[in-house]
């Protein structure tokens, strides 16, 4: 029993490798909708890859599949060379996630939530307490407030604590699912700066799902566009712009997004449907536009 799972992953491997991953959900008897259609994606160690896509495009399903919360119908998901579907307990040790909702016990304090989060990864209080203090200081959180219930903290602060919780477990792959959606501009900036710090100071690979073009452009090495469960493009920001360039002038990333998805940013982020509810029209529109 006294072996560490540290030995069971291969650090030389890609942080994440998805090959032809598909997932569909049953909506009614005999009626299915695809959330992911043959998605293939590689995330190198230390790389930050952004995924842009309108609501309902499959971003959250993609994150759930990678984080072992949803079993794909077909395809393979490997994290540092380990099959995440066959051996979820091994890969779970090396991943962590921050989603659009901070996912805390709201009545418990930030300290209590962080101590609990650390224990789920086998970290005892004597080890986690100094780390918590160090991380909270680094994100500019007033340590005197660690005893306050989470529900007393602003959403921006809750998101920063969520990032701190993820950092506490030293993840080698971080899954950030719209971490800044719904935050006020100041909080958004703070959270983005924190992600930037993580990127610069940690040996973490990051998959960032976002609606924010500036965020994607600033933080990501490569950016993918997911439409109706299909990854229709994956390239550097410049590569995407060149791909969708029509005249002499390079389009903005927002232009690229609109050309690829057939939706404006406002349309893409204002839909309220659950992310699993893929539909088909936008992908058809996107294919038409790509052909143009």
């Amino acid at each position, binding site marked *: 029993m006294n072996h560490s799972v540290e030995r069971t992953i291969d650090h030389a491997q890609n942080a994440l490798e998805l090959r032809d991953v598909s997932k569909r959900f049953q909506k009614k008897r005999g009626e299915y909708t695809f959330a992911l259609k043959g998605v293939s994606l590689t995330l190198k160690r230390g790389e930050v890859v952004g995924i842009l896509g309108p609501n309902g495009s499959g971003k959250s399903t993609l994150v759930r599949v990678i984080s072992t*919360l949803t079993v794909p119908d077909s395809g393979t998901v490997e994290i540092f060379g380990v099959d995440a579907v066959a051996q979820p307990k091994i890969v779970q040790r090396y991943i962590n996630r921050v989603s659009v909702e901070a996912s805390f016990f709201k009545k418990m304090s930030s300290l209590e939530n962080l101590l609990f989060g650390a224990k789920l990864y086998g970290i005892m209080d004597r080890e986690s307490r100094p780390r918590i203090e160090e991380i909270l200081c680094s994100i500019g959180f007033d340590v005197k407030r660690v005893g306050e219930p989470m529900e007393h903290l602003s959403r921006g602060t809750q998101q920063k604590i969520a990032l701190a919780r993820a950092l506490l477990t030293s993840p080698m792959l971080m899954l950030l699912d719209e971490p800044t959606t719904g935050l006020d501009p100041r909080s958004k900036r703070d959270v983005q700066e924190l992600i930037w710090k993580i990127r610069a100071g940690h040996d973490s690979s990051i998959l960032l799902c976002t609606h924010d073009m500036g965020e994607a452009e600033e933080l990501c090495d490569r950016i993918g566009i997911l439409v109706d469960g299909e990854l229709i493009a994956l390239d550097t920001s410049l590569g995407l712009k060149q791909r969708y360039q029509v005249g002499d002038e390079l389009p903005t990333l927002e232009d690229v997004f609109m050309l690829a998805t057939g939706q404006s940013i406002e349309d893409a982020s204002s839909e309220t449907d659950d992310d699993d509810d893929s539909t088909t029209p936008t992908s058809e529109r996107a294919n038409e536009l790509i052909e143009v």
Partner: protein
Amino acid sequence: MSSLHAPLQQSNLKRELVAIWGYAQRNYFLTRRYFLWEVVWLVYSTMNALTIGFIGVSVGSTAEETARATTFLLIGTLIWSYLSMIFDILSETVSWERWEGTIEYTFMSPASRASQLIGMGLFAVAYGIVRMIIMLGAISLFFDMSLGNANYLGALAILVICSISLVGFGMIAAIMPLISPEKGQQVTYIFSAVLLLISGIYYSIDVLPGWMQPLAKVSPIYYTLNGMRAMLLDGASLASQWGNIWPLLIMGLVFPPLGLYLFGRGEHYAKVTGRLKRTG
């Protein structure tokens, strides 16, 4: 912050033990935060026990008969309060996480489901004992109970054995919210209500219709109450209650692993069908 990235070298067993403690401690934190609600619930349960105790006072033609009837009812009330709380805490494992919005975070952590359910079970047993002691203290102020010959250690042994099987029973019930996020929890309340009906908590199961009486034999609470009443009311020895103990031992051996296995199947089903989500 480079020190934050030191790899954590430790055995799986140690990590799971830390996680078990984490779940138990988290429930303690939550109970403390909801302290006033817990007080309200404790007062309600105590009042309920007193009400049932007074029913006992109203029956019996002699003081001895009355004390025996009252004690019979109060043992049922206290044990039901304790065991139903264990069952409820375990069966609400999934619903609670979903309600708080933490289910995805918890289920993607490397801690095993066994650790989660054992941690929940340990807290439920410890908290249930504290509540029962407080209730017993309050009740003893009102009633003259017939406990002169009581075999307390024997009764405690039976309660411990039963707690294990109830934890397993709760694990089985906890599957329901995984299978049906919207209606699953309500089904567990039906489980709980059926246990209340068939286990002979306030009456001997002899008064149940003939077809219903065999159902009691699958309830660990039935054997627990039989054994505890014999030991508390009549001072029976633990050995004399073997007929009530061996079914509890078998249930204690079968229910927890069965519960874990079924919970694992339920979790897999939820992951395949996309039901392991924050919202129900």
